C-alpha cells in the first residue's frame, strides 16, 4: 500500500515535470500540415517531414497518397496544405503554384532473372499494345508469355509513360493493373515474366533493399540518377509540391528546408535528384 502511494506520487511528479517541460519548449509552435497526392513523392515527403519535425518540435506533417490527381483535386478543394504531383502542371491546372522539389525518371522494370537488359521504344510500344505477347519475340526467353503490368488511371506515372510511348489509355493491353509504386514493385518481383514501370527513385531504392527486379536500359541510357541529372534519360519528370496561394508561412519554411543542403541529402539518399 505504501509502495502504491509512493509510486502514485512519483507518477504525479513526472506528469508535472512533463507538463512544465512541454509548456516551455513548445510554446507557440504547434503546427500541422497535410500533404496528399503522388505515391512517388510521398516517401520523399515523409522522410523530409521526419527530418523537419526533428528540427522543429511541435511541427507535424501528415503525408497521404492517392496519386497526383488526388493531390491536385485535394488542393483545389482546399482539403490539404500541400499537393504532391509527380509531373508538370497541365494548362488547366496552372491556377495552382508548383514548387519543384526533385527530379525523377520512370524506369521500365522486369524480374531480376529476365535475360533482357535493353528494350527500345518501338518494342515497348508493341508490348504495351499487346501486339507482342512472348518474350522470345523481343530477344528474351521463347515461349514465356509477357505479363504487362500497368498503372491505374489517374496516376501521373501512367500518363507520362503513355505520353512517351504516344499511346492512349484505350490502346494499352494490360494483364495486371496496380495502384501505387510499391504494389508495382512487388508484382514484378513476384512474376518472372512481368514487365512494368515505376519511379526510378523507388525502383533503385527497392533494388538496394534486395527486391529482385531489374531496371532496363532505354534508348541507350541506363536509368540512373546521373543520367536523370544530366538529362540523358528519355522519361524524366519534376516532383512538385503545389499550393493554391504562393507558399507562405510554414509551407515556405518547409520548402526552404527541402532546398537546403540537408534536404538535398535526404532526397539523394532516396535516389532522387535534388533541386537547389
Amino acid at each position, binding site marked *: 500500500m505504501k509502495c502504491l502511494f509512493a509510486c502514485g506520487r512519483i507518477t504525479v511528479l513526472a506528469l508535472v515535470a512533463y507538463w512544465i517541460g512541454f509548456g516551455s519548449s513548445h510554446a507557440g509552435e504547434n503546427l500541422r500540415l497535410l500533404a496528399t497526392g503522388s505515391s512517388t513523392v510521398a516517401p520523399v515527403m515523409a522522410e523530409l517531414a521526419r527530418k523537419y519535425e526533428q528540427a522543429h518540435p511541435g511541427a507535424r506533417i501528415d503525408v497521404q497518397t*492517392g*496519386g497526383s*490527381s*488526388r493531390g*491536385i*483535386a485535394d488542393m483545389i478543394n482546399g482539403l490539404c496544405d500541400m499537393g504532391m504531383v509527380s509531373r508538370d502542371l497541365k494548362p488547366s491546372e496552372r491556377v495552382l503554384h508548383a514548387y519543384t522539389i526533385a527530379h525523377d525518371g520512370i524506369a521500365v522494370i522486369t524480374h531480376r532473372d529476365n535475360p533482357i537488359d535493353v528494350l527500345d521504344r518501338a518494342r515497348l510500344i508493341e508490348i504495351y499494345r499487346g501486339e507482342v505477347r512472348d518474350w522470345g519475340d523481343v530477344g528474351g526467353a521463347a515461349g514465356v*508469355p509477357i*505479363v504487362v503490368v500497368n498503372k*491505374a*488511371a*489517374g496516376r501521373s506515372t501512367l500518363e507520362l509513360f503513355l505520353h512517351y510511348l504516344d499511346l492512349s*489509355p*484505350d490502346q494499352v493491353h*494490360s*494483364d*495486371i*493493373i*496496380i*495502384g501505387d509504386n510499391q*504494389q508495382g514493385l*512487388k*508484382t514484378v518481383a*513476384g*512474376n*518472372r*515474366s*512481368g514487365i512494368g514501370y515505376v519511379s526510378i527513385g523507388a525502383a533503385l531504392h527497392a533494388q538496394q533493399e534486395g527486391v529482385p527486379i531489374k531496371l532496363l536500359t532505354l534508348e541507350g541510357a541506363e536509368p540512373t540518377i546521373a543520367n536523370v541529372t544530366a538529362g540523358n534519360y528519355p522519361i524524366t519528370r519534376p516532383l512538385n509540391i503545389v499550393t493554391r496561394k504562393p507558399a507562405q508561412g510554414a509551407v515556405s519554411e518547409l520548402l526552404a528546408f527541402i532546398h537546403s543542403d540537408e534536404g538535398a541529402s535526404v532526397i539523394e539518399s532516396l535516389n532522387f535528384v535534388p533541386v537547389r
Partner: protein
Amino acid sequence: MTDRLLTWTLGAATLVVVSLIAVIAVFLLNESLDTLNRVGLGRFFSDSGWSPTMGRFNILPMIVASVLLMAGAVIVAAPLAVLTAVFLRFYAPSPVVDTGRRIIEVLAAMPSVVYGLWGLVVLVPVIAAWQQPGASLMAGILVLSLMIFPTITIVVHSGLTAMPQRYIEASLALALNRAYMVRRVVLPAIRASIAAGVTLGAARAIGETMAVMMVTGNIVAVPGDLFDPVRALTSNIALEMAYALGDHRGALYISSLLLLAVVILLVLINEFIVSNKCEY
C-alpha cells in the same frame, strides 16, 4: 426506474446506429441521383466498357467479379469452417480445442491488408508459376476464403456450444454414433448459426477492398476462367475515387449503393433461412 433508464439508453443507442445507416444510404443515393438521371441506369449495364472519363460506364464486369469472388470464397470456406467447428466441438481433445479456438480468433481479427500482402508476395507468384499472370480471380477467392474461414468457424462453433444439451443426451440415449448424430441431429439444429456465419463471411468477402485489390490484377473484364484477372467493385472505388469527378464520381457512388444493396439482400436471405428453422 433503473430498468426504464436502461430501456431508454439502449433505445437511444439503437436509434443512433440505425439512423447512421440511413444517413449513409441517403448520402449515397443523393450523390448517385444526378448521374443516374443524366446517364440512365441502363448504360451501366450496356455501355461498351468502363472508361468513365470518356463517358463509358459499364460496371457489369465488376459486378460479376464481385459476385464470383464472394461466391467462390463462400464455397471454399464454408464447408471447411463447419467441419472445423464440428471437429473442435465433438472430436478434438480439450487442449486442442482451446488452442485451436484461440488461433482461429486471432485469424479472424487479423487486418485484411496482412492477408492481401501475403497474397501479393506469396500466393500470386505461386499461381503465376503455374498459370500466368497469377493475379487472378483464383488468387482473390483463396485470399478471401482464408479471411472469412475464421469468421464462419467462430459463429458456427458458438452455435454448437449454445445448442441445447438435451439433443446430445437424447442421441446418446438412442445409442446413435457420433457421425450419425452430427449429420442428422446437430447440423440441422444449428442451421441458423451456419446461415448467420455464412452471411457474415459473405458480407465481409464482398466488402473487402485492400486484400482483393492487391491480388486480383484489377482488369475490368468478365473472366473467362479462374485464372483471369478481375476487378471488384470495391477495388474500383478504391483505385478511382481519389481523383474521380462529375459522372465518374457518381458512377462510383452507384457502385457503393449496389454493394449496400447486395449486403441487405444477404441479410434478408439469412433472415428467411432463420425464420424457417422451426421445421426441425
